[in-house]
């Protein structure tokens, strides 16, 4: 299995001289199973350069998995060029939106309203199929299996675990670890904490034996108190999580759009230091920042 990063930025594309090394495109990760089946995790602006790459070998059979429908995870979809070419097939997977009461089938329709985009969905010539996923129910893609797990974000957000011939990778999408909404002195604190612990335990069990964890690490621990409830995690928090899970590799992604490459490296180094991280230490995962073009082979 191969994993390649095409977009690693959170919230909004952030091109420019300060983001040259890590990249300014929003989230898009290409996963190739052992039989070369194509799994695309999220359709941020990074899906556009991926599309250019895919056009070199037609027809394209793409399996897109949307973690959630916030703009930075879907905004590249109308520019996924294979959608316009007859003979290609694109299967778009995602969750059910409680607020609108609709499945993932609304993802294009909402974006392609005529005042906002010149092409209608009916004019896209590829075979397009929508699959609204159920929590925890795996789907097969070639020789890989993709399992959606419910995480914590302002909208329904699925993390996807991809398993292929004994290797596995999990991408959180946007995720803020569950926290207690009560203060320790409040009456409901203990009961709520029990529910939070249960939820986290359930996720950890679903990630047993995981090789690579790709996690939304938007903030530093110091920045987090001002961002509680925004739906994102921290570098320090995910380092601890990766150790607890015993994964081989942690890739920190969804970089803050205002962070320059230099700043990103500084906060990353500081997080590693404050976590007492020893590269190559016994039982320690390998920890890295995601960047456009980074490729992992599992």
């Amino acid at each position, binding site marked *: 299995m191969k994993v390649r990063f095409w977009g690693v930025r959170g919230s909004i594309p952030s091109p420019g001289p300060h983001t040259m090394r890590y990249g300014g495109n929003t989230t898009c990760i290409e996963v190739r199973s052992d039989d070369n089946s194509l799994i695309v995790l999220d359709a941020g602006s990074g899906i556009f350069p991926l599309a250019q790459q895919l056009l070199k070998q037609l027809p394209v059979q793409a399996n897109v998995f949307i973690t959630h429908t916030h703009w930075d995870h879907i905004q590249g979809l109308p520019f996924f060029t294979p959608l316009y070419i007859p003979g290609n097939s694109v299967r778009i997977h995602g969750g059910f939106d*409680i*607020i609108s009461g609709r499945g993932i089938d609304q993802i294009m329709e909402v974006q392609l309203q005529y005042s906002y985009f010149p092409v209608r969905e009916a004019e896209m010539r590829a075979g397009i199929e929508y699959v609204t996923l159920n929590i925890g129910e795996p789907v097969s893609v070639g020789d890989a299996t993709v399992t959606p797990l419910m995480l914590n*974000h302002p909208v329904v957000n699925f993390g996807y675990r991809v398993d292929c011939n004994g290797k596995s990778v999990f991408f959180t999408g946007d995720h803020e670890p569950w926290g207690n909404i009560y203060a320790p002195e*409040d009456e409901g604190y203990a009961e709520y904490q029990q*529910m939070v612990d249960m*939820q986290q335990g359930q996720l950890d069990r679903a990630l047993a034996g995981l090789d690579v964890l790709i996690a939304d690490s938007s903030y530093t621990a110091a920045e987090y108190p001002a961002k509680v409830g925004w*739906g994102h995690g921290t570098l320090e928090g995910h380092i601890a999580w990766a150790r607890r899970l015993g994964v081989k590799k942690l890739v920190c992604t969804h970089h803050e759009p205002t962070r320059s490459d230099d700043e990103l490296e500084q906060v990353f180094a500081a997080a590693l230091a404050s976590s007492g991280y020893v590269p190559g230490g016994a039982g320690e995962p390998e920890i890295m920042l995601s960047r456009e073009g980074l490729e992992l082979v599992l």
Partner: protein
Amino acid sequence: MSALTPELERKLGVAVERMPAFPRSVQKILELTRNINCLPKDLVGVVEKDPVMTMKILKVINSAYYGLPQKITSVGQSVVYLGINTIKNLALGFAAVGILPRMNAAGFDIQRYLLHSLVVAGTARQLATQFAKGEVDPGDCYIAGLLHDFGKVVFAQFLAVEFRNALVHSVEHAVPLHEGEKIAIGVDHGPVGAMLAKRWAFPEHLIDCIRDHHNPDAEPSAMMDCLRVADQVVRYREVGDSGNPWRETEAIAAPARFGEDMEALLAQLGTLDKIIDDAMMFAQVGHEK
């Protein structure tokens, strides 16, 4: 037992989905959500005091879509699963439906109903903590208390004429309201509330409690004991009777657990003032007598 036709069941189920919530919670939700940094616990504090909002949240979280390993009975737990922003959006949606009018064609005062439900909920939780420790989750007893009479507010909204007749019958013949309902409607509020709870895949023990709280032949449980006796305590204290006043001839529903003397039970239970004061403020009503 239910005399409701399948068609009426379906109609009531659909109607309840469009049912407005209580005035105070609608107002509080609108107020809280104007501030982007509103505290999640404050939102939960409002939703869990409103039987309509609580019903609707539990309906979403227990729907087949989530396929959760266990059924959910608390608003707090729904927040853990769905996230506070989703709960906030759902609550805003409920608030947008409008507010339940205080009076209706049935002549049933829904704010006094709310007072009754809230005090029964709080009392059932306290009874569970004191008298059924380890047997039943006090939070479950709270929800059972909050939702046990939901059928009444459904009657008042959607079967107003029949429900008015039931209320009149129970006063004129000095019988409990559920007896009047059986005569005027053909079924009492228990099975109707339970029918909705079942339709929305609520947990079995909660459905049982809602259905059978006036059925003396029902299988007893710690939750049912706490609910029934909480209901009696509240009516005895004349805090809010939800159309069913205390009768001198009534005996404590679960004497094995709570004894036979209501005054002695009240003394053991201690003051309920905080539960009552909070409920009165939220239901926006004064003392009944």
